[in-house]
């Protein structure tokens, strides 16, 4: 790096002061909250912890969380690859608009994300008659939870791979196409190896966010225990019932997943830097 030339006039006092401020801020804001979750979860002993995470309602909530996460991640990955292919490999009018529309869910409050599905499929909507006649329940049922989860994690995969595919250009794909390779093979053999790590990271991020979504899912779930409760909603119920240790025990499962995501993120970043 450029360190030798840069730090000539750097004040030692300033340097350690700034490092100190940074570390203090991060310990206070990030590390202490993280430690407190683990400490609260184990406050009443390991037995209570195990009981809380193997409770029937917890397992049912975990099951629903996994289903919603799996569907949302698969759907958004397929979409992410398709839309990235369209945006980066072709020229067409309205490309910028499409790019902006993908990001739209980022700008929308989770509570509003839930609300729009209640308005679309709930009481008084234009679809109400069709849904009632066919006995389909979307809002306050599992399909609503899945839809809300898909919405809030919508841009993640696309956002990660579009810049990578843009940087890569279209020359190699064009050459392969002219030699007669079909679309799927071009993607698998030429595009995929270049975006592999970004794609993996996008999928992980999407899955992590899907597992942890609270606001949007809370609006559409109806909070039926053992039926429409996801892990974050289950944590809320336990907390509001003053079962703090149980709430933190369930929370610690999500903390472990979050820490794994962070570690993977760093591995992915390191791998991509190495390949460049």
């Amino acid at each position, binding site marked *: 790096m450029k360190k030798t030339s840069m730090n000539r006039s750097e004040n030692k006092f300033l340097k350690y002061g700034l490092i100190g401020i940074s570390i203090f801020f991060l310990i206070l804001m990030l590390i202490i*909250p993280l430690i407190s979750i683990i400490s609260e979860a184990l406050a009443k002993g390991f037995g209570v912890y195990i009981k809380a995470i193997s409770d029937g309602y917890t397992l049912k909530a975990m099951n629903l969380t996994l289903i919603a996460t799996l569907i949302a991640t698969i759907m958004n990955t397929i979409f992410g690859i398709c839309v990235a292919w369209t945006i980066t490999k072709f020229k067409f009018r309205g490309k910028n608009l499409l790019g902006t529309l993908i990001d739209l869910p980022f700008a929308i409050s989770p*509570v509003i994300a839930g609300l729009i599905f209640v308005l679309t499929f709930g009481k008084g909507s234009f679809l109400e008659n069709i849904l009632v006649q066919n006995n389909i329940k979307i809002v306050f049922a599992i399909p609503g939870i899945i839809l809300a989860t898909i919405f809030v994690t919508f841009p993640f995969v696309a956002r990660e791979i579009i810049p990578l595919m843009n940087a890569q250009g279209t020359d190699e794909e064009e050459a392969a196409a002219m030699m007669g390779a079909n679309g799927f093979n071009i993607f698998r053999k030429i595009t995929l190896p270049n975006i592999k790590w970004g794609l993996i990271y996008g999928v992980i991020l999407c899955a992590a966010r899907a597992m942890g979504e609270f606001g949007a899912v809370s609006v559409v779930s109806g909070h039926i225990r053992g039926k429409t409760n996801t892990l974050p909603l289950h944590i809320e119920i336990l907390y509001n019932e003053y079962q703090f240790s149980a709430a933190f025990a369930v929370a610690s499962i999500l903390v472990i997943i979050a820490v794994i995501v962070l570690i993977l993120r760093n591995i992915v970043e390191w791998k991509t830097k190495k390949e460049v």
Partner: protein
Amino acid sequence: MSKTKRVIPGFRLTMGFSLVYLSLIVLIPLSALVIKSGGMGLDKFLSIVLNARTLHGYLVSFGAAFIAAIINSIFGVILAWVLVRYDFPFKRFIDGIIDLPFALPTAVAGISLTTLYSENGWIGKILYSFGIKSSFSILGIVIALTFIGIPFVVRTIQPVLEDLDGQYEEAAAMLGASRLRTFCKVIFPEISAPLLTGFGLAFARGVGEYGSVVFIAGNLPMKTEIAPLLIMSRLEQYDYSGATAIALVMLGASFLILFVINGIQLYNSKLKQI
């Protein structure tokens, strides 16, 4: 559109799927919001939106998000600077943990911060002994919003600082400029655009945030009730039009923030080209 034949296959398929999926998941549900408020009538819309409790909710959400975004801007610049320019033990770890608020579910952050900052919590105990009410107060809301906003400013400034050419700093130093002056006149203009983006992202996220705030806020009407909670409580009473009206104003405001920031960004980049 260009008349030349596209060489790479798959345009129709991927474009078609993308548009259908985008419409089904995002555009049609969002339009339901607009349709619902369109059928409401202006009088009713205004009476909900201009209600004292609603206005106070907006004030709390936008105010607290603004303060938190300012705090994050200050610490974000310091953190990015330290991570790019200095070497110290555990730097990789510090760099990695900054994204924790992205990875940690908001509800988990919410209950953790509430326990920490309540009267008997590790940090709350200290603050309360000085008479500072750190939970069930506006301060609590600001703490939660600061937590979730940490990565935005750091991650937008960091790459710009990494790419910054050291020559100008050196030149400034050789010409006798103090370190502070160099920072203000040479470095700050370079990072001001990403800083604004990071600020805008943190602010917009804070305005709509629900999960991490709802536990620590205490949710007292006219005191610590945030706008997303107002939507939530209207929904629980099946008052869909009320919820829609409040949501529409919030949505409009968030889009306006992002639009203004994009506008400033565009203006700045055009200015630079001249």
